[in-house]
């Protein structure tokens, strides 16, 4: 029983990982130039931080 389940789940994981790796390789091979301009392309310093607070309990505005 354990062996049977191990084969079922092992194959499920194996083929899922195999599919993910193939999809990654496929995108590298056939999906060319799939990117757009980012903030860095339109500004050297996209943001100037005026105020930054971490782990606060409620909204300040």
């Amino acid at each position: 029983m354990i062996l049977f389940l191990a084969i079922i789940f092992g194959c499920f994981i194996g083929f899922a990982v195999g599919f993910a790796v193939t999809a990654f390789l496929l995108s590298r091979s056939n999906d060319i130039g799939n990117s757009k301009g980012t903030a860095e392309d339109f500004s050297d310093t996209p943001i100037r931080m005026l105020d930054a607070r971490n782990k606060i309990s409620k909204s300040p505005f």
Partner: protein
Amino acid sequence: MIYDCSGCGAALTFDPDSGKMKCSSCGKLYESYELEHFNREEEASALSGNRETGMPDRKISYPQGRGGSVRENAESFDEQMECYVYICTACGAEIYVNDVEVSTFCAYCGQPNVIFDRAGSARRPQYVIPFSVSQDQAVSLIRKRLSKGFFIPKEIRDFEIERVRGIYIPFWLYDIHCYDREYLKGVVGSGKYKRTYHYYREAEGDFRRITVDASIRLADESSQRLEPYDVSGLKEFRMEYLSGFYADNCDAMASLLNDDALYRAKRMFEAEIAKTVKAQDIQIIKQDPKHEIQKTEYAMFPAWFLTFRYQELPYTVLVNGQTGKLVAGLPYDKKKMHACTGILGSLFSVGGIAFSYAMMQSEGGWELVKAIIALFVLGAFALTIGLPIMDGVKTSTELTSLAQTNNYVKDRQGGD
């Protein structure tokens, strides 16, 4: 306007390799200032030759998508589009130009014509990035890249070019000042140490020359993938840069695209703010954005469009005419894809079975259930990685075979 060689009289076109005007016959190169002295400023005159105004005399209409097939009595107004008729100064043929084309070729003799009077003062671009990549280089880049793709079918690797067009795409460039204050939440840690925290950020910033495609006929997704253009290569607009290429004037005014530009700036600004929060699954709970367009400029950017056919469908590969960046989503060889999945799947399955068997070796029933759930989650996780990637490939392929992009290239004078 046609620029002629002072030596042999043949037409001059802009040469991306030298950055100068080049005679198509004798190969002589000209600097821009030289053209001031001896170019023949002869407008492509209208049918009755109104040379004083430079405007075409006869404005006719033809059904959309019919190329040069002229019908003066089309059935309904909706089927018509405006076009202008010019006479080619080289061979005398009639050239039909649609509403937005500012530069074209004679369909009969191939003479490059720059339709000067269509780029009136209102729509005259302020800047242009000239072509740096020549047609041969663009084709070579595509062939080289396609030869590397393992999953690209052989028929595509050895593609026969249906048409290649160097086209100047109109863009609006926006300078946008951004300000936002945000109340965010994010997750830190994992498992039983997982915690959700709240953050506050207030920031401002400036984006310079955000590009928004000003052509309705070209899909925004396609033009955005051509980015980035190096705007340091912007030059003051001069008509000679258009010679030898196709060019469209904008058919979407800046005011219509303001929201698109602001939305793009907003998304980029939010992403930059999110980068400053050291957490995962960041969400904005509340925000107060104030983004403002400060300046708008109009420019033309170069791109090569190369079309080929595969299984009766046209595919259009785009090449950034300045940087050489390729944009294409190509169909894949299904046999190779299935074989690869099968081989990799089998290999990983061996490891997966051993791993699963080891996990299930516990004696308790509850431990076994936990192991099964963990294994299922692991497999599902792998699928959630693979499926969106496949979806992205499919979207790119659809974009490359989009009829809209193909027509953008096809509906031009001198077409095959």
